[in-house]
């Protein structure tokens, strides 16, 4: 798996993984109609990001929607701004989002449910992916597995280890 995508960011700019090259990436796939796990995880990501201190400049937090039909650029702009000013929201066509998910080896599925808003839910992996500056996979985390302090420390440790190795 690797970070590879052609998407549109929440400012309407066409972006690819090349726009984030040289920075570590903390990536979450979700959707804005998600009432619980997505706000929970994005708020957690924002806390982790704030705890990174000096290393924060070297990490790009990315939120990729799995529901591009509803999560348009303006929707993403309003949504990500609530969580963190540095959070980048990414959307695209159905095909672009599907391709990004494939490259990350993540999974999502549309579930028809008459009681859901617009008649469907999106089921998705709740993982946070840490990707290396060259886009290669580094590690995967779940929000509930450790407090934000522990994840921030873990990420700092991995960045330092990489610096030492070079």
């Amino acid at each position, binding site marked *: 798996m690797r970070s590879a995508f052609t998407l549109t960011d929440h400012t309407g700019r066409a972006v690819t993984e090349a726009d984030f090259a040289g920075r570590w990436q903390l990536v979450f796939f979700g959707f804005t109609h998600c*009432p*619980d796990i997505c*706000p929970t995880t994005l708020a957690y990501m924002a806390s982790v990001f704030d705890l990174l201190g000096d290393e924060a400049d070297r990490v790009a937090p990315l939120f990729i929607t799995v529901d591009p039909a509803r999560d348009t650029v303006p929707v993403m702009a309003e949504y990500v701004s609530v969580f963190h000013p540095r959070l980048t929201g990414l959307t695209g066509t159905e095909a672009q989002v599907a391709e990004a998910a494939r490259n990350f080896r993540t999974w999502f599925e549309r*579930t028809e449910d008459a009681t859901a808003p617009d008649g469907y839910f999106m089921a*998705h*992996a709740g993982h946070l992916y840490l990707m290396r500056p060259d886009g290669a996979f580094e590690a*995967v985390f779940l929000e509930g597995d450790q407090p934000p302090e522990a994840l921030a420390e873990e990420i700092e440790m991995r960045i330092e280890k990489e610096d030492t190795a070079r």
Partner: protein
Amino acid sequence: MKALLTTMALMLPVAAIADVTVTDPWARASILASRPGAAYLALDADGPDRLIGVTSPVAAQVMIHAVETDEAGVSRMRHVETLDVGPPAPVVMAPGGMHLMLMGLTRKLEEGTRFPLTLTFETAGEMTVEVPVLGPGASGPAEE
């Protein structure tokens, strides 16, 4: 304001009617008006009872959602029609787990406001709690 909220949250509605107790209700501020909101609370009961319905004037519909995460880390929300409460353990709703989904909000849930939520139990009947709205990134009533 934060300190005041903390005090208020701690003192908040510990409503006890019959043998069911509802504690620590709270909701997340909704981010966009048209998005569903989420509310959380804990339910305890002296004896077996069953939550059979939840309503609020701020939402067209309130659904009980369990979250199931499979081995692959895929989370699915499961709509639960009724919820058994009672010994031995309380039912505790929390972010990332069981929650109440508020659909068709009549207004955006603004941080610092509150709204009534009516829970209907098979035996204990109806009880209404006031739910404080915390920040969009809140993870529980103790943190704000």
